[in-house]
């Protein structure tokens, strides 16, 4: 059993705290993805686990054994680096067998294990080549091969796909998922790409400023984000966050008035809030639909940008008036800065939608898929199973952070 436990792990560089009191339990053979925006400390956390950075406080246990004072090579942990870090003057076989050579494993045994790993990664015919003769994807495979040939208990990945082009990234994502099934190792994977997180992880850890915002399965994170940050970070296009005011609370339901004249009753636990409190209503672009609503929870959207992606179309619009101003802003390239602003709404519809630019369309909101966040940004608990029928959205796009909140 090679579970990985972090207990109150902190890393400080001088006055800067990169990782703050992280507690994390990772089960044997689990695939854990650590996500967060740039500078959230995710790479530092990985390097602390690897032993390349000494932790400031806390403990790290692999398979129940404390390893935080053990040299990196003796922790039973291997690491795949972002830019591969292959030894340029060694052949592929030399690269993959280096750790075994350092561990004084006999030659024939090294050869057997290198060939075995190469077979798993389908790089058997590259073993005699030098890294510079390989493509990016092949180098990545060699780097992974070098990590797994040692038969480590834990494999760490530091944004391993970020240097590959989009198509290759998708292929390697599938490869890694397959690899995870075929070797007996726990995997910890760091990325800023939420698509990689959603598609590969058994468990996602969302990190911000060195602290864990939420830990959970991809579906939990998607359907039950713990706070506004997680809600905005996971999902693409990012969740619409609209300021509102609590109108009334009932048992398991909160009625909210949202900018644009919409009144909506959302199923949520009304713990700690009362009528008149400011709240944030979150609704994912894919949970909105074009068309009138017989029950009346709909509002008018003035569309000002349409992004047809083929299979789906993304509409950017504004709840109610001032369409002219928005277009000017978009032309000036400032749209991104304001997207997510109080009255801006993003809707994802099917590809065949016949909406035209500058058109006013009715947008339907289903209360069951809405999220509510209190003044501090903490989610009001949703009833179990809320929204779970919606398939997760996995479009690769870097979401921006909380711009709308600042602009409000």
């Amino acid at each position, binding site marked *: 059993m090679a579970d990985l436990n972090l207990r109150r792990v902190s890393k400080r560089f001088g006055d800067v705290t990169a990782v703050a009191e992280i507690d994390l339990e990772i089960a044997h053979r689990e695939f854990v993805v650590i996500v967060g925006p740039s500078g959230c400390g995710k790479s530092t956390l990985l390097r602390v686990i690897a032993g*390349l950075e000494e932790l400031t406080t806390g403990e790290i246990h692999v398979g129940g054994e404390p390893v935080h004072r053990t040299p*990196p090579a003796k922790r039973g942990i*291997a690491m795949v*680096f972002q*830019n591969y870090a292959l030894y340029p*003057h060694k052949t592929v076989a030399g690269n993959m067998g*280096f750790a075994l050579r350092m561990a004084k494993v006999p030659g024939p045994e090294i050869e057997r294990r290198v060939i075995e790993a190469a077979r798993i990664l389908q790089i058997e015919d590259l073993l005699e080549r030098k890294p510079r003769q390989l493509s990016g994807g092949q180098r990545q495979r060699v780097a992974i091969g070098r990590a797994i040939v040692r038969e480590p208990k834990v494999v760490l990945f530091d944004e391993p796909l970020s240097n590959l082009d989009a198509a290759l990234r998708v292929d390697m994502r599938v490869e890694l998922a397959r690899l995870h099934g075929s070797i007996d190792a726990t995997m910890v994977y760091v990325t800023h790409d939420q698509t990689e997180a959603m598609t590969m992880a058994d468990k996602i850890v969302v990190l911000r400023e060195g602290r864990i915002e939420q830990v959970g399965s991809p579906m939990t994170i998607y359907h039950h984000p713990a706070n506004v940050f997680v809600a905005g970070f996971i999902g693409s296009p990012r969740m619409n966050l609209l300021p509102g005011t609590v109108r009334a609370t009932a048992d398991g339901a909160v009625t909210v008035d949202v900018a644009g004249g919409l009144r909506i009753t959302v199923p949520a636990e009304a713990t700690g809030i009362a009528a008149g409190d400011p709240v944030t209503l979150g609704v994912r672009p894919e949970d909105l639909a074009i068309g009138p609503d017989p029950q009346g929870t709909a509002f008018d959207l003035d569309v000002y940008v349409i992004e047809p992606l083929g299979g789906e179309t993304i509409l950017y619009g504004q709840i109610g008036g001032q369409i002219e101003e928005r277009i000017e802003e978009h032309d000036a390239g400032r749209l991104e800065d304001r997207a997510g602003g109080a009255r801006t709404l993003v809707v994802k519809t099917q590809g065949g939608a016949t909406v035209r630019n500058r058109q006013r369309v009715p947008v339907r909101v289903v209360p069951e898929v809405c999220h509510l966040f209190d003044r501090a940004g903490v989610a009001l608990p949703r009833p179990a199973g809320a929204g779970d029928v919606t398939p997760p959205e996995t479009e690769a796009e870097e979401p921006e952070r909380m711009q709308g909140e600042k602009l409000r």
Partner: protein
Amino acid sequence: MLAPIFFFLAFFYGYPTLSNLYNSFTDLSLLGLKRGGEFIGLRNYVELLSSRDFYRVFWNTLFWLTAVSVVLRLVLGLALALLLNSMTLRRWRLATVSRLLLLVPWATPPIVAVVVWRWLLDGRQGFVNGALQGLGLIDRPIAFLANVDVVWPSIVTIIVWNTLPLVTLTFLAGLQSVPPELEEAAEMDGAGAVQRFFHVTLPHLMPTVVVMALLLVFWTFNNFVYVWLATGAGPGLFTNVLATEIYIKGFIDFELGYSSSVGMVMAALMAVLGLVYFRFVALREFREIL
């Protein structure tokens, strides 16, 4: 467009070379420049190659002046670069200071360097003798630049002192371009400091070492200044090298023809080195550019 420059260069390179080649087949004397030399065929070369003195000059140039000083500079340069690149020095905040200090010998012109060293190594009032005697390491002063046992090590010391900074700085630049994640990958793979040096650092530095070695050989092999200023090829002709031999034969013995033939031998040896350089270094650079 390049034609005028080409002809210009061809003239100023070609004419002296050809003139020197012709002179090497004559008995031209510095005292008879107007009369000109008489064509004597290969007699200068025969005399040169059959002279025992010449082999000593040859050995001095190849072994002492070039091989010893180049190897020493490569080894010391690498060691010093590793030291300067070490975390310890950085932790003590000495990195900048030590790098500035390193530049002092390099900023010293060779002539000044040799003159200063001649004072330091002086057999009567020299600082080195004073210091060694003060420490009780030697009983009587050593004439460093006149004693055949120590004269070559002394000259090599001057050369190394004066030109080591360039080597060190070049290696230091090479060391700083070693990707840190390569070191880290090796650390994760279980390589200790020594193994990391041989498996990561040295291979990364190897191209720099090769180029540096070739350049040092070029610069040292035909160097005249250090030997001439330090010992004047003495004591006697004990430290005579090819470059000083040319000067002595031409301008002290007035045998310009013979001196020219020494020059041609030297040029031929340099041409071989040039070929090596071109084959291993320049060609690769060309390929990278094209």
